[in-house]
């Protein structure tokens, strides 16, 4: 049996059954679930502002019903109210969030909306009723007014990747989501790989391991195991996101927000396969580079309490990469974005963003990926040296100069 496989299997099992992995995965999944479902649940509990009843003059409410149907679910149409409605009255009339009483006076249409949560009453209500207001004022038929109020505007992409506005907005959402997942996966798993290396060093198991195995091999196996559990964690989160989005849309089908949630959650499914492959490739090399650095850094400490001090400098490129990716959503092909998309450690964040929101020349993608692979290999070799020396140092942590001497040797 190959030694790499032996260590990989042992590490994988240790990590996937560890409390930190299980807790991180569950907490992440619950967070995604809450983001998908909570708005609907809360909306439902508090009464949905899209579920309304109309009251007032039947001639006016009949037309209003037609105009409002696009954005609201009209549950009931009532005669003029004898008194301001109570919460119980709203419950008795289809558990609506709002009862809007429509009447006419000298200035035209007048609306009084009785809402459970006035802050949540949507502004589209007034816009939807605008044709009726104009019709009442001018005497024109409502249908004619409606037709003239609608100005067809078509947005077409020029020299870009997207044919229209909505697909461009969706691509930015996908890029943001995937970059965020990479960011989250690196930071969550960095802690666990550092803890694993620190455990082996502080418990002196490391000396036994490096006596039997090449340190670079040991490091590679540990990092691959970490990457695997990172992928599994990512898979669980994406799956929970999709399922919770679907579930939300079913549970709250009567609620327009449910459909919105579904669109958000299943959006990534519409990502072209090439981009998914790109994400997987950049996720893998990015994760690998950081995991190797974190493992080497952890080999330098003698007490687990010191993990934070060596981890801190490594957080900087992760955060910088994340921020650059956010900025790059709006300037994907700026010269400086093209530059950073070729810089290892940053490029997994930046290049993926560029791929998602623009047409990146193939050679740039290939070059970036190749540089990342080479960087990952070099980092494994260099970190292997630091790891080998660091694991056997039990006194004062080595100075930066000593580390450089080690790397040159």
């Amino acid at each position, binding site marked *: 049996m190959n030694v790499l496989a032996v260590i990989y299997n042992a590490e994988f099992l240790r990590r996937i059954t560890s409390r930190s992995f299980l807790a991180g995965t569950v907490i992440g999944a619950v967070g995604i679930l809450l983001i998908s479902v909570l708005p609907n649940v809360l909306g439902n509990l508090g009464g949905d502002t899209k579920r309304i009843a109309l009251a007032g003059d039947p001639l006016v409410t009949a037309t209003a019903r037609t105009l409002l149907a696009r954005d609201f679910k009209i549950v009931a149409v009532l005669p003029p109210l004898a008194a301001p409605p109570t919460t119980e009255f709203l419950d008795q009339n289809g558990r609506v969030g709002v009862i809007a009483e429509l009447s006419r006076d000298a200035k035209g249409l007048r609306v009084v909306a009785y809402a459970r949560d006035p802050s949540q009453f949507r502004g589209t209500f007034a816009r939807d009723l605008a044709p009726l207001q104009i019709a009442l004022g001018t005497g024109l038929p409502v249908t004619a007014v409606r037709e003239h109020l609608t100005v067809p505007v078509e947005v077409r992409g020029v020299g870009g990747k997207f044919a229209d506005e909505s697909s461009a907005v969706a691509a930015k959402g996908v890029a943001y989501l995937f970059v965020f997942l990479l960011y989250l996966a690196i930071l969550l798993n960095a802690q666990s790989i550092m803890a694993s290396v620190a455990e082996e060093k502080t418990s002196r198991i490391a000396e036994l391991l490096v006596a039997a*195995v090449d340190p670079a091999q040991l490091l590679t196996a540990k990092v691959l195991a970490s990457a695997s559990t990172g992928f599994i964690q990512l898979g669980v989160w994406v799956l929970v996101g999709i399922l919770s989005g679907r579930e939300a849309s079913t549970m709250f089908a009567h609620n327009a927000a449910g459909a919105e949630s579904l669109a958000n959650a299943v959006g990534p499914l519409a990502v072209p396969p090439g981009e998914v492959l790109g994400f997987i490739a950049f996720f893998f090399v990015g994760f690998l580079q950081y995991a190797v650095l974190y493992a080497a850094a952890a080999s330098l400490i003698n007490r687990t309490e010191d993990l934070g001090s060596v981890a801190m400098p490594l957080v900087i490129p992760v955060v910088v990469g994340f921020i650059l990716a956010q900025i790059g959503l709006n300037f994907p092909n700026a010269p400086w974005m093209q530059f950073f998309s070729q810089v290892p450690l940053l490029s997994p964040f930046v290049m993926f963003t560029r791929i998602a929101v623009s047409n990146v020349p193939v050679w740039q993608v290939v070059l970036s990926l190749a540089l990342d692979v080479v960087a990952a290999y070099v980092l494994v070799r260099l970190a292997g040296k630091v790891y080998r020396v660091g694991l056997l140092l039990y006194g004062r942590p080595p100075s930066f100069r000593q580390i450089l001497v080690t790397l040159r040797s």
Partner: protein
Amino acid sequence: MSTLVLSHVARSFGSVTAVRDVSFTVPAGTTFGLLGPNGAGKTTTMRIILGILAPDTGIVRWDGQPIDVRTRQRFGYLPEERGLYGKLKVRDQIAYFGRLHGVAPPNDVKRADAWIERLGLNEYADRPCAELSKGNQQKVQVACAALHEPALLVLDEPFTGLDPVNAETLHDALLDLRRAGTALILSTHQLWQIEDLCDTFCVIAGGAVRAYGSLADLRAQWATRVVEVEPPAPPLRAVLEATPQARAVTENGRAVLAYEVPADTDTAGLLRRLVAAGDVTRFERVEPSLQDIYIRAIGAAA
């Protein structure tokens, strides 16, 4: 026959020279005692043998070949500083280290069970290692180091933390490994425990070899012997005083005459003169112990 050869090995850490010129050989099926005071360079020498550290100069060979990762997989190591995965169960831990050294399943678990049985760890086999006593953890470490029937087994202070019964169990296990052809390198400060176990000894101090050879060789290099005579009667003392270059050594409160004489002294002639002088109830020519040799070698180094 496979042999470990160290030839003029040296290693420094910055301005500190840990090992300056160490050479020795350890053939398969023999036991080698690597002795020396704290900071003598023993651990560095062992780490160099195991490839954990590279020598600055000198050569380390096994079977005539430089030691690479493949060779190291056939070696076993019990470092002075013990380390186990605390949450891993005893059987799993031993089997894991077996797999690291190339023992494929299901033999890893079978051999782990055999070592668990042999070292009396049955009741702990399914317990996490962190729950074991220090002595039992030490036995688990020995099993981890020896499970793959190593060609060379390096043990740094293997008897530390073991009670006399367990020390005897380990002693027997090491003898069995030697019989099976394993070359053993032992480092310990408990010299009496390895005097009968080792074929060859090497005393190093200040990073250099101070004494090297079998116990018989080392004794042969010893210039004097101690003779002990009972009872401590004045006529017998007079004979000993008259022996050329003899000098009295401490008797440690015993009712005995103890004199250091040159190693080439005619012992039979001395005994005849003693018997002629009075009633002799005991006469013994005491060979220098390993401890005597060690202390003298270290003293010479100092």
